[in-house]
């Protein structure tokens, strides 16, 4: 019996000039390899020739045309579905915007017994009680925090070394839970600590109140201790012992570690990763150093090249992928945040990679003295004498005073990537963010000049690295798909 076809395949294919472009941007990854992105960051790889043929209407590659249609990069004139789907996806990506502010950082003490090379907080000796937050300040801070519309509230205790004011941590946790009965928010608590002061009382507290621990682990012992000076020079030993203790008592998923890159870290990426792997830590956040506080003041301390950091990042990422191939499921956190933005319509909520920036609307910082800052870096700038990002004080500012202040709205409005020069035409705009504090500190204005911005250069470097790997390695592409859901 002959086949029964009413509609030939050729009738549903695209003839020359049958299509039109949908809003798109491009970036050249390699001499002949380009990546196209649509309004919501979906991407396709093409050659320059292919792009020109598509733009000229002469492309005859049906498989390419079908790919571009499916990825909402081209459409047939008169179709309405692609625009509707793009609009839905755009809305979905932005749906968390009204849910400010999710992260509230409480600086419960400025005291610290470490003197880390890159510390952005003024060091104070452990004795000075006047650098501790009071219950009154904490209470007023909580009142302001609960005014945020966000259904989620993460309270992060920082310092100095927050465990030096452990009684207040207890108090704030209890008070927040009590106040929450009137709000019904989803509460989470984290203590960012160097773990040197961890004891059973604190562990019991964390177990009972479901508190997570975040700590610093810069890498192998000599690297970590070189960065983080402490009387007794045993910061690494304390950190490792602390991590193991928390894992044993609370479980492996209750402690996470962050590393900070310094000059000394460069060239040792694989060792850093292996240190994390050996400790059973399943996530590594390969972060750059920010130019604040001691980092700026120390001669040659941490002003290294973005390109050298990118080499470090590449090596670290490759090491993590290698470990995954061998069956160890480690995640590189920065890549996973970007994967979420590239491959889904979800917002990972990472304050340094959002547009508009996460200052104020993503995170608020309540300093020990009640001063409110738009971000942790904003607080660190203040320690150096620059109060640009101080939004008020809990003792005399209302929620409206804080959130509608010029100090916040001005940099916020300038942080929209959709309207910043070069960002508007950048293919990676849907993945990127703005860092008005960084640009203010380094360039003197909130937007900066992206061609001269280390923030831009670093992010472009990571985006192009990840895309090339995804283009060339199916295993890495699958890994990014998994990481996108983390």
């Amino acid at each position: 019996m002959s086949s029964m076809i009413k509609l030939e395949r050729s009738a549903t294919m695209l003839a020359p000039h049958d299509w039109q472009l949908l809003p798109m941007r491009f970036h050249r990854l390699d001499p002949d390899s380009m990546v196209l992105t649509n309004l919501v960051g979906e991407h396709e790889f093409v050659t320059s020739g292919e792009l020109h043929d598509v733009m000229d209407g002469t492309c005859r590659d049906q498989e390419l045309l079908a790919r571009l249609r499916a990825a909402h990069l081209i459409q047939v004139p008169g179709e309405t579905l692609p625009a509707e789907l793009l609009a839905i996806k755009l809305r979905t990506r932005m749906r968390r915007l009204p849910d400010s502010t999710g992260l509230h950082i409480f600086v419960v003490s400025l005291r610290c017994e470490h003197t880390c090379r890159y510390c952005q907080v003024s060091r104070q000796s452990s004795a000075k009680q006047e650098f501790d937050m009071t219950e009154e300040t904490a209470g007023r801070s909580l009142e302001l925090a609960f005014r945020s519309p966000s259904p989620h509230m993460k309270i992060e205790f920082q310092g100095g070394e927050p465990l030096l004011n452990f009684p207040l941590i207890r108090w704030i946790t209890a008070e927040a839970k009590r106040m929450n009965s009137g709000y019904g928010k989803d509460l989470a608590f984290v203590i960012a600590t160097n773990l040197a002061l961890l004891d059973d009382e604190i562990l019991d507290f964390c177990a009972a109140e479901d508190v997570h621990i975040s700590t610093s682990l810069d890498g192998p012992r000599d690297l970590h201790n070189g960065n983080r000076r402490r009387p007794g020079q045993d910061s690494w030993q304390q950190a490792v012992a602390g991590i193991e203790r928390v894992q044993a008592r609370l479980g492996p998923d209750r402690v996470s570690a962050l590393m900070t890159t310094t000059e000394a870290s460069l060239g040792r990426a694989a060792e850093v990763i292996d240190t994390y792997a050996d400790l059973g830590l399943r996530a590594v956040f390969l972060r750059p150093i920010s130019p604040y506080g001691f980092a700026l003041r120390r001669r040659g301390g941490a002003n290294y090249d973005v390109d050298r950091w990118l080499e470090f990042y590449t090596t670290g990422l490759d090491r993590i992928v290698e470990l995954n191939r061998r069956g160890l499921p480690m995640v590189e956190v920065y890549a996973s945040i970007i994967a979420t933005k590239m491959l889904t319509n979800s917002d990972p909520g990472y304050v340094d990679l959002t547009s508009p920036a996460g200052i104020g609307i993503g995170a608020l910082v309540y300093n020990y003295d009640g001063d409110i800052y738009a971000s942790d870096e904003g607080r660190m700038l203040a320690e150096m004498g620059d109060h640009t990002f101080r939004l008020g004080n809990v003792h005399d500012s209302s929620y409206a005073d804080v959130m509608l202040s010029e100090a916040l709205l001005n940099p916020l409005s300038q942080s929209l990537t959709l309207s910043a020069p070069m960002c508007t035409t950048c293919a990676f705009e849907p993945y990127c963010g703005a860092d008005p504090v960084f640009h203010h500190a380094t360039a003197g204005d909130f937007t900066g000049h992206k061609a001269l911005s280390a923030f831009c250069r670093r992010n472009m470097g990571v985006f192009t690295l990840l895309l090339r790997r995804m283009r060339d390695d199916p295993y890495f592409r699958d890994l990014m798909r998994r990481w996108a859901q983390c």
Partner: protein
Amino acid sequence: MLKLTSRADTSLLSGPLADDVWRVCLPGHETDGPVACLLQPGQAPPPGYGLYLTVGSVAGIPGPALKVGRELEHLGAGDIIHVPGDGRRVTVLWKHSARHNALLLTEQCDNYCLMCSQPPKDRDDSWLFDRAKKVVSLLPADARALSFTGGEPTLNADAFISLLEHCERVRPGLSVHVLSNGRRFADPRFTRRYATVGLADIMVGIPVYAPEPGLHDFIVQASGAFDETVHGILNLASLGQAVEIRVVIQRHTVPVLARLAEFIARNLPFVTQVALMGLEMTGLARPNSTLVWSDPADYQPELAEAVDILTTAGIATRIYNHQLCVLDRRLWPYAVRSISDWKNDYLDICRSCAVRDACGGVFTTSGNRLSQHLRPVPVQADQ
């Protein structure tokens, strides 16, 4: 495999039957309404029934009686049958013991899929809706689920909505699965009528075969189908209605399966589930077999990638109509025994298969158009 229809010996019928849809019961149970009493050979027939059925002799039965062929020996209490007024044929519409039951609502369709297992017929068969209403009214009390199929059930909008409203009135707790190409739901008013019926547990199963119109429209043989279908899915979602996306895996869909999975994950992530389905080589799939046939053993990598994309994105995924022996082992957890009882069967070689009971077998309707790689799965020591 079950036969569902049989000629009937009407020699003892004295006039036309009172009804055309009957529920089967055993002697001594219920006599009100269109209930047909099933007699075993030699069993004494209690009086008072409007219809008696037997595979044995009809002599001495105190009412209208039909002798049915041996193929309907499987008839049981709770089954629902159709018998035309002259009694010449008995067809089982609903099988009480079956895992799945589907009611055909029409053979008309505005698509013409290359692999359609129920080729469209352009004739007025609206009486099928009336028959369906009768079936729903006669469903046994413990009936849980029912599918409505076609053709395209929504072509006759008023009859379709009326049938759903009837379900909601007489069987509000029923789990209803509608198989539809989704195109009529592109009309927001129709979708609103559908949603307003208020059935608590109803889902529409809608096929999407490609992530863009070119290939999808070709496979369903209708220009503009993709556009209407996806609009329909969006409209249903906007009214909170459950949608299942069904993908028949055939020669044209295999190369785009992963991209289709990505499209669903990115554009239609709200769907209740995605069903990836093996081909039934019947209907139009037979004359089009060179166009559509793809041996399941050959497309496991594409299938695994699609499942991986969907499940990583958190979308419930099921694999239907695949034999376990040709399915990648990593995909076994997603496989469902889905072939309806009346058309499934096993091959002789399946007798020694370690997982025969978990496997749905093959479509009898596919004849000998089956995978070249079917073989019994050996028993493993670590199983």
